[in-house]
């Protein structure tokens, strides 16, 4: 019994210590966002890496998500004779929920894992130590541009995801299933308001922060060797994905 309590206590303390460490890392990073010199070149490089290079996969994910949504919702609405509501149903699902979440999960898989691996390899090959030995702050050089780039890029990619998704839904609903184009868009205009768009933006901004924070942290404090980097990468993707879903629920509860 004593051993069980000791094990649980030890696990709890170590988890608490880990969370504290992560939080301090985030606070350090946020502090350096506002302290010059600002590294605009590194910021642009990260915007290109996280944003531009994720465009193709976001376009694919967005269009097929919208198409699947339209297909499923259309058949459900037809049972109650409300096919006209297809446009708002697709748009609201995408703007408020699926757009930010699926977009964040996609970027986590494509860019987040790569960021963890890159920073992790820099750690184990002493490149981060080299920065420190030159009196240069690695958080300013590696972490801050990534976090800022993510906060900028996530809402933009989410917006693209939503628009493409809505047009994917349009293609299935209007072109394939015979709904009129005017019904699809006019109902959407009536039911989607600014609050829905704001919710989507708040979510995507916070997901950008979560993904960049977790992925950078895991890479920065990676274990030894290739195994350490591989473990850090897996943990970063799993933890980011779980935190996205948990935070999505809490933010949704607060904002709705």
């Amino acid at each position, binding site marked *: 019994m004593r051993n069980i309590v000791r094990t649980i206590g030890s696990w709890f303390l170590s988890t608490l210590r880990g969370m504290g460490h992560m939080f301090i890392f985030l606070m350090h990073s946020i502090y350096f966002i506002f302290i010059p010199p600002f590294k605009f070149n590194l910021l642009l490089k990260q915007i290109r890496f996280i944003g531009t290079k994720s465009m193709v996969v976001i376009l694919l994910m967005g269009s097929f998500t919208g198409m699947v949504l339209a297909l499923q919702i259309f058949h459900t609405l037809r049972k109650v004779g409300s096919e006209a509501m297809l446009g708002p149903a697709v748009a609201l699902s995408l703007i408020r929920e699926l757009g930010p979440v699926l977009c964040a999960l996609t970027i986590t898989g494509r860019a987040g894992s790569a960021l963890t691996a890159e920073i992790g*390899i*820099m750690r184990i090959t*002493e*490149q981060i*130590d*080299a920065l*420190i*030995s*030159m*009196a240069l702050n690695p958080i300013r050089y590696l972490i801050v541009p990534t976090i800022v780039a993510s906060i900028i890029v996530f809402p933009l990619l989410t917006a693209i995801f939503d628009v493409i998704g809505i047009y994917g839904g349009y293609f299935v609903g209007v072109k394939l299933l015979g709904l009129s184009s005017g019904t699809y868009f006019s109902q959407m205009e009536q039911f989607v308001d600014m609050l829905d768009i704001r919710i989507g933006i708040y979510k995507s901004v916070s997901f950008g922060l979560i993904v960049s924070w977790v992925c950078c942290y895991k890479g920065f404090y990676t274990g030894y060797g290739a195994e350490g980097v591989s473990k850090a990468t897996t943990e970063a993707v799993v933890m980011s994905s779980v935190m996205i879903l948990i935070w999505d629920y809490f933010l949704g509860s607060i904002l709705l």
Partner: protein
Amino acid sequence: MIKIVDLEKSFDGQRVLKGVDLQISEKELMVIIGESGGGKSVLLKHLIGLVKPERGKIIIEGVDIIGLRGKEIDSIKEKLGVVFQGGALFDSLTVYENVAFPLKEKTKLSKGMIDERVLDALEDVGLGGMENKYPAEISGGMKKRVALARALITEPKIVLFDEPTTGLDPIILHHIHRLITATHKKYGFTGVMISHEIPEIFEVADRVAFLHDGAIVEVGTPEEIKNSSNPVVRQFITGSLEGPIEAF
């Protein structure tokens, strides 16, 4: 110039440094030798400020660097150049960009001045014409030479070498040692080098310190170390399996 006093460090309850005392004079090239896993790299990391000791002092130019933070420790680090074991070159930057990096970040030199200094530094280490290569495209020996050029580009007062010739063939090893000697003469830095390369290291060092069981057990000129009567030192420099040092 550098004074290490009673330095102690443990990792997970295992004492790695048990009271290291060592003094390195200005413009001297001190080589620290000792068994693998004996704490040499940990000692060097203390000098860079990457590891904090549990006890002891590291005095660089009269300032105890232990406990210094922010701009105070940065001002000490600006006097250092470090050649890491694997080179620690930035993968995403070319050879030129790697060497130019400390100048671009820490000085206000014009692009023309930086170009001139970087190209000169690359010539000094025999890498003229390799500016546009990436670290992944050059050999291990070349990486070490780029790392040396990067460490020296700001003309630091102190240069720390963490096993700069590990894993290199004997010809490249001698070449790197010759480069270190030549640059030491040219720039007049104070050098601290961790190495296993016996007897080659005796050609490079002004003095040699032997780290054993977490403490410096002998310091002397290469000749004094070669003729040491200490059984631990004798066993290490002859590479004998018989003696106080257990291989496993």
